[in-house]
């Protein structure tokens, strides 16, 4: 990691800029809009998720066929595949309760702060607290029994 390409971090920053601008433009950065979607009052949000997945889907499928490795890291292009276990369902359900209650998810919360939503700091504080709590519990479980450790 010490021999990173000088454009590595700048490129990630630019990607974040486009990502955040898109979340602002789509208004997914507004909890009200997400709640209106979940309450079946405005289905437009489907176009954000599927529109974004369409772009990444085409890119992820085409890129490995035209290039072997990413220019800034030398890493092989791979898809985002995670192993399936009970945690995906349990975590997904807990995430769903939180998302349905607050109308905000991590990426949208960062963008929400950018569009001026200072109130969203409550949600960001909550997310850090929640991430810390699970990390604390799981660190203890892993330290107590290394056999059950599993890196996500």
């Amino acid at each position, binding site marked *: 990691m010490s021999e990173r390409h000088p454009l590595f*971090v700048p*490129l990630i*920053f*630019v990607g*974040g*800029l486009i990502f*955040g601008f*898109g*979340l602002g433009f*789509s208004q997914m950065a*507004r909890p*009200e809009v997400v*709640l209106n979607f*979940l*309450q079946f009052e405005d289905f437009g*949000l489907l176009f*954000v*998720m*599927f*529109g974004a997945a369409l*772009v*990444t889907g085409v*890119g992820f499928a085409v890129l490995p066929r035209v290039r072997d490795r990413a220019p800034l*890291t030398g890493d092989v292009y*791979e*898809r*985002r*595949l*995670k192993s*399936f276990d009970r945690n*995906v369902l349990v*975590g*997904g359900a807990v995430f*769903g*309760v*939180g*998302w*349905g*209650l*607050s*109308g905000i998810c*991590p*990426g949208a919360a*960062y*963008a929400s702060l*950018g*569009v*001026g939503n200072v109130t*969203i700091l409550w949600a960001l504080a*909550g*997310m*850090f607290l*929640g*991430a810390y*709590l*699970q*990390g*604390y519990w799981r660190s203890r479980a*892993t330290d107590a029994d290394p056999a059950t450790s599993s890196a*996500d």
Partner: protein
Amino acid sequence: MTDPVVLQTTADLFPNGIARYAVGGLLVGLGALVIYVGTGIPAGASTFLESTLSYVSDQSRFRQYVASRDWRVAFTAGIVLGGLAFAATVQSGVVTTGLYEPGTTGQLYEVAGVTLWSTDVQPWRLLVGGVLVGIGTRVGKGCTSGHGVCGVGSASKTSLVGVVTFLLVAVVTAQVVAALGVSP
């Protein structure tokens, strides 16, 4: 040949049109794709929570993210400033486009000529919901961007199951909360 019934139904389903959602979604996907093209990394937004905690906590769970924590800060800073760039341009009316539907949610306010926006959703909902989002996304191996954008874009079965799970639970939760009279 435009059927008025179809038009009416469409207006009911999409009271704010679809343009702003579709354009925004394409940009979100483009942002993730730019990072992927350059680095091969299918990025998600929620790992930042744990990787940033590794700056202040020695819990073994967070140590695995030490190597990636600096660029994850850059990614999140980009997302925040991307939101601000949107506020300073389209939200402020400096750039106008027929693809953007302003909507009526929340409160607009001005600082130094920039039109900013703030939510009306109650702080306790944001805080409690945030805690559950923070736990759930890390236990469930991804959030709306990791599973929803990069995972679904990878046709990952794990991510598809994750997305269906949190979407269904979120719909039920939001409907129950609304039925209990909690608003906004």
